[in-house]
């Protein structure tokens, strides 16, 4: 082994994570592993880590990501919960069939990951050809009169790119826009989110939602444990208030950590993610100090103020105003299921409310709620909450038979994103704290107004 290879095998492992069903928790752990670096693009990654279980709709995107990695490359699979893979999703089997050299390790196993990486660089571990060699990008070579894929004046796919369409830009000019599908594995969007949009320069026009890949086939059951599990369980079984509130604070802090990373503050995000990992009610002073610091942070305020304004008028048609949740409370709607919950009666609970409904208000809302949650946990002691009234989850109220919060929030996207600059759009999506798995729980065929057909090619490949 040469000096170069030996040095290379000691570098931080560049990892591109793919979050399958139930994989969110383990994905947070991956971020904090020592000697591992999450990268922004598969082009920079040597190891692909598939976390949780794959649905059929996620299989092809994962294989595309795999093929984009330049090599040497290896794929790791971290199954979650040890649940069998035969309960209606066969993406896992597809992955193992398409990539025979997938290594299965336990989630969060840093040593296993490093060992695979070291073997890979030392040449002890062969790496395979592209998994989708038989699937081609749009055929353009040799097509058309000039052999460049175009035809006539405005037809074809010149050089493999679809022809731009024209549309009004914010300054009133008719400019070309490039039709694009973003997702389901775009690292700056929540895992699974698929957006069909037009891009005019870096301005987004005409957004429609794509299929939710966590629900890959009509009739498939929802897959994987959701990241709001304690709250879902609280609907049907007794829970201590303290456990519920610490889980809420942890959820909000993890969201904050991910959001900071998107704003270019990876190191600050890691610190908060580490705090969230071992969070308990005694961390209240630390979280309160954090809330104060973030409140004073001019840079973060400038990056979020006025972005993605979802005020009461925007929320009302979706029924969110009546339902509650941090997004509604950040727009000044003081509704919280905990107000009427007898378990919180003696705890002096008042809903936190912010005004403006922009990304900045939502950021402050969540951090303030995290601090408040830890204060509630301290005060609640051993108090037990009995099932019955709706549970206020971290994204909104949860009750049997009720739409999941992410399912309604996701419909804000087409309105909010239209006309936004790219960075603002990413900020907006992040500030809504969407979970596509949660949205898949009660997604019925009619719940998705737009169902473009182009994305379901992965499903048709399965037997």
């Amino acid at each position, binding site marked *: 082994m040469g000096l170069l290879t030996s040095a290379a095998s000691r570098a931080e492992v560049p990892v591109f994570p793919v979050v399958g069903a139930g994989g969110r928790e383990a994905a947070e752990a991956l971020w904090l592993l020592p000697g591992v670096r999450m990268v922004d693009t598969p082009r920079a990654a040597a190891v692909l880590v598939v976390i949780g279980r794959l649905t059929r709709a996620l299989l092809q995107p994962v294989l595309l990501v795999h093929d984009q990695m330049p090599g040497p490359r290896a794929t790791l699979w971290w199954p979650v919960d040890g649940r069998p893979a035969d309960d209606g999703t066969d993406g896992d089997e597809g992955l193992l069939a398409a990539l025979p050299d997938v290594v299965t390790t336990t989630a969060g196993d840093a040593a296993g990951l490093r060992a695979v990486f070291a073997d890979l660089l030392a040449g002890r571990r062969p790496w395979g050809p592209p998994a989708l060699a038989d699937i081609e990008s749009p055929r353009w070579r040799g097509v*058309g009169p*000039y052999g*460049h894929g*175009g*035809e*006539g*004046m*405005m*037809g*074809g796919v*010149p*050089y*493999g*790119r679809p*022809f*731009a*369409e*024209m*549309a009004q830009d914010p*300054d*009133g000019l*008719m*400019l*070309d*826009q*490039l039709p694009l599908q973003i997702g389901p594995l775009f690292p700056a969007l929540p895992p699974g989110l698929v957006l069909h949009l037009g*891009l*005019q*320069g870096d301005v987004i026009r005409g957004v429609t939602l794509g299929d939710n890949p966590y629900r890959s086939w009509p009739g498939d059951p929802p897959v994987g444990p959701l990241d709001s599990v304690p709250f879902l369980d609280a609907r049907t079984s007794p829970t201590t208030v303290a456990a519920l509130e610490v889980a809420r604070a942890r959820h909000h802090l993890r969201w904050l950590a991910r959001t900071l990373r998107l704003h270019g503050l990876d190191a600050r995000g890691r610190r908060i993610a580490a705090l969230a990992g071992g969070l308990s009610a005694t961390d209240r002073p630390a979280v309160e100090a954090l809330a104060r610091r973030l409140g004073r942070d001019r840079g973060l305020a400038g990056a979020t103020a006025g972005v993605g304004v979802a005020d009461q008028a925007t929320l009302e048609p979706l029924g969110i105003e009546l339902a509650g949740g941090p997004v509604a409370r950040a727009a000044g709607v003081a509704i919280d299921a905990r107000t009427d919950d007898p378990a919180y009666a003696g705890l002096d609970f008042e809903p936190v409310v912010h005004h403006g409904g922009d990304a900045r208000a939502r950021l402050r809302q969540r951090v303030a709620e995290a601090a408040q949650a830890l204060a509630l946990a301290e005060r609640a002691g051993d108090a037990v909450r009995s099932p019955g009234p709706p549970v206020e989850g971290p994204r909104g109220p949860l009750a049997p038979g009720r739409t999941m919060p992410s399912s309604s929030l996701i419909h804000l996207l087409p309105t909010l994103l239209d006309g936004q600059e790219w960075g603002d759009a990413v900020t907006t999506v992040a500030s809504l704290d969407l979970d596509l798995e949660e949205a898949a729980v009660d997604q019925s065929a009619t719940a998705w107004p737009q169902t473009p057909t182009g994305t379901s090619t992965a499903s048709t490949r399965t037997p």
Partner: protein
Amino acid sequence: MSRPELAGVAMWILGGSSVVAAWRVFRTDSMVRAAYWLLASFVAVGMVMVLLQARFLGLVLVLMMAGEMTIMAAFMVMFMMNPAGLNPMSMVHQHTTAKVAGVVAFAGLAFVGVAADFPDRPVDAASEPTAELGEELLGDSMLIFETAGVTLLATMIGAIAIAGKRGRFGNAQEGSAPPPVDPDAPAGPDARPSPMHGGHGGMHH
């Protein structure tokens, strides 16, 4: 090789590359490449100017053109979003006339340049051209300098007024009833050419 000889060779090379780059501007199917070939031509000329002791002017030319050509390239991509390029087609008209005019202009000017007997009075190597230019701009020729400044200011204001959405008579797209590009179509704001009008676009990028 002595320094003046080296400078002479460099001037040959730079002069040649500026002409080659200029020719490439009109021989590429990509607007971005065209803009940056033009920039290359300007950079070569700017470096010749530096070698000719007009250091300040040469560097300012590079600085200015780098910005302008980037705007030009961004401009064309803005109108035509495809990063790769679009369907190629001949984008020239009156080709013969243009060629003849170009050759005649070249021949005439080159003849004057070669035939005329210019006095041989080279710039003094010890002089400070930048300082002299500064003294000139803020001394004898201050009026010219100020005129140029005011002209640029007026241009900026005028350009914003022309390009802006709101003209003197309100929104540029309201009420002005632009005539349609197709002469047979009815005039009026609702008769704007179809977005897919074949003419738009795209031959360069």
